[in-house]
């Protein structure tokens, strides 16, 4: 992540104008600002590879085979966006659009409880201890807005109504759609209409992310594509849809390991990290099984 020259100047001016012995360096201010620009995943390896976490103001896509952890990561982000600012989080709310029925309250409660325990252990100063009084499983659940969409028309309708919903809620920092693939793959009898609708949807999501300064996270399935007799595993919904997101996370299995790769451009993998799903949620893999490699 980088800031413009204007923002750098402002940061320096703010630092100079600061009173008292405890002055803040421009670097610290910069780091503090950057902290508000991403949502941590609770996998420090993945957060590092992403430059802090899932970026606010952008559209991120999570692709992967069934069961690899797409919904788990979405649920984790829905909890992590709420981490109080004094712990480095955004203290925000989330709207979770569920098209598959995979939003299970039991699991969300697991993740919320684990996040509360995690922050409780970290709480050092008075500000953090006070913040913990309003960061509980109950408040976490109260800040997750759930919408269930049963087909692509309902999904499109929800997105039309989103600006109204966002208007009254300045704390809303995350929109999750799990998944975009499920309802749209059913529209297989008119592929040109599907492409048009997806293009419009992509533009709408980008506008929502930038216009309202929220992180938009969408999940996608994998499809098999036949190319000259060979079958390849590719993200579903076609090539045009691939341009909607600025970051694509590809989750996959390698034997018994779960790997997350960041794909910024087709065929180019920036970094791959290993992760695991525990009863507490999305986490770094155990130290003994670390696998981290960068591909050129």
């Amino acid at each position, binding site marked *: 992540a980088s800031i413009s020259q204007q923002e750098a100047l402002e940061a320096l001016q703010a630092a100079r104008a600061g009173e008292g012995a405890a002055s803040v360096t421009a670097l610290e201010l910069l780091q503090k600002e950057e902290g508000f620009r991403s949502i941590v995943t609770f996998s420090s390896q993945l957060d590092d590879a992403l430059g802090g976490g899932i970026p606010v103001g952008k559209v991120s896509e999570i692709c992967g*085979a*069934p*069961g690899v952890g797409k*919904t*788990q990561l979405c*649920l984790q982000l829905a909890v992590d966006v709420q981490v109080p600012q004094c712990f480095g989080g955004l203290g925000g709310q989330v*709207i979770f659009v569920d098209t*598959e*029925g*995979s*939003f*299970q*309250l*039991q*699991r*969300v*409660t697991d993740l919320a409880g684990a996040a509360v325990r995690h922050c409780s252990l970290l709480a050092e100063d008075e500000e953090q201890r006070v913040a913990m009084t309003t960061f509980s499983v*109950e408040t*976490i*659940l*109260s*800040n*997750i*807005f*759930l*919408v*269930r969409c*049963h087909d692509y*028309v*309902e999904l*499109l*309708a*929800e997105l*039309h*109504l989103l600006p*109204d*919903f966002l208007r009254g809620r300045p704390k809303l920092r995350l929109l999750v759609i799990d998944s975009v*693939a*499920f309802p749209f*793959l*059913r529209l*297989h*009898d008119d592929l040109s*209409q599907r492409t*048009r*609708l997806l293009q*419009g949807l992509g533009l709408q999501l980008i506008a929502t992310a930038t216009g309202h300064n929220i992180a938009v996270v969408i999940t996608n*399935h*994998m*499809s*098999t594509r036949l190319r000259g007799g060979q079958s390849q*595993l590719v993200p579903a919904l076609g090539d045009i849809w691939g341009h909607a997101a600025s970051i694509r996370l590809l989750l*996959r*299995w*390698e*034997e*018994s*390991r*779960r790997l997350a790769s960041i794909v910024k451009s087709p065929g180019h993998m920036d970094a791959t990290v290993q992760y695991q799903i525990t*009863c507490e949620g999305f986490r770094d893999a155990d130290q003994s099984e670390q696998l981290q490699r960068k591909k050129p």
Partner: protein
Amino acid sequence: MSWDHLQLKPQIISAVQRAQLKSVREVLCVSGPDLQKMTGLSRSDVQELLHAAATASRTHQPVTALQLQRGECHRLESGLRLGTGCPVLDQLLRGGLPVGGVTELSGESGAGKTQLGLQLCLSVQYPVEHRGLSSGALYICTEDPFPIKRLQQLISEQSVLRSDVPRSLISGLQFSDHIYIEHTADLDSLQVCLLRRAPLLLARGLVRIIVIDSVAALFRCEFQPDDWLERNKQLLTFSSMLHNLSQEFTTPILCINQVTDVFNQSANSLSSSSSSVCPALGLAWANQVMVRLMMRRLQGKVFLGDQSSALRRLEVVFAPHLARNSQDIGVWREGLRAVLDRD
């Protein structure tokens, strides 16, 4: 379609009618600029139209997860699970089958899949406090005839399996009366059953679980390898029907599936399994399933009283709320039961 109830300006309504848009769904499927072209309305009028159409087609307002937990929205989350009849298996599944969603159970022949299907047709009939849903079952057979003798044996042994339930309650339940059996030999007749018979039974509250035994049979023999695209389309249509039924009637649907051999282990980035078999029907089907379970037959025997059984294992392959885990089980006269201590 009567546009009047959308409370739009008369000029918008007449423009919509002139453009021959017949429903809110049609309006929503057209982009803003295209709508402007079609109706000749201004940008702000089109936004008003889309807003009204969206509000009309929305089924519910966003609710918070806290409201769900407090039981304020039964349609979205009732917290209900359908128990299997064995408390240890229910623990593996954190209560049992989720009532909104498709659960798949795959495995080789003889693994015990039908046994679990039958057992669920009985457990559904118990009241909610005994982890049932106080309703009957629809069992759709697509290959082998319904195992009626085995069902009768299970019914007669229910008091042995369900020692947690008062005998008087068990003897009061007329199990066979509430199990509706259908035989569908091909995809067309299965679809007719799902589109006509199933909704009737569900709407009348006569049935609150659908078991399809098995899904693989229909899709494997009807399509040649070249028809792979066509088969996937049919799978998606079929899965749509299942999901619609499941959501509309908050009913669990159990799809029994077969397994196919895995040839190229190293290229398999779709699952963590190192086994030599995987569920049939491929990735397109796998993407439609919310809970994937597998039943395996293992080496060895287990004993319970005077009975012996080949050892099996029920495995959670994936589910949004379950950890990857497994439980050893045996198949007994009274049904499937977890095996805790092994000889």
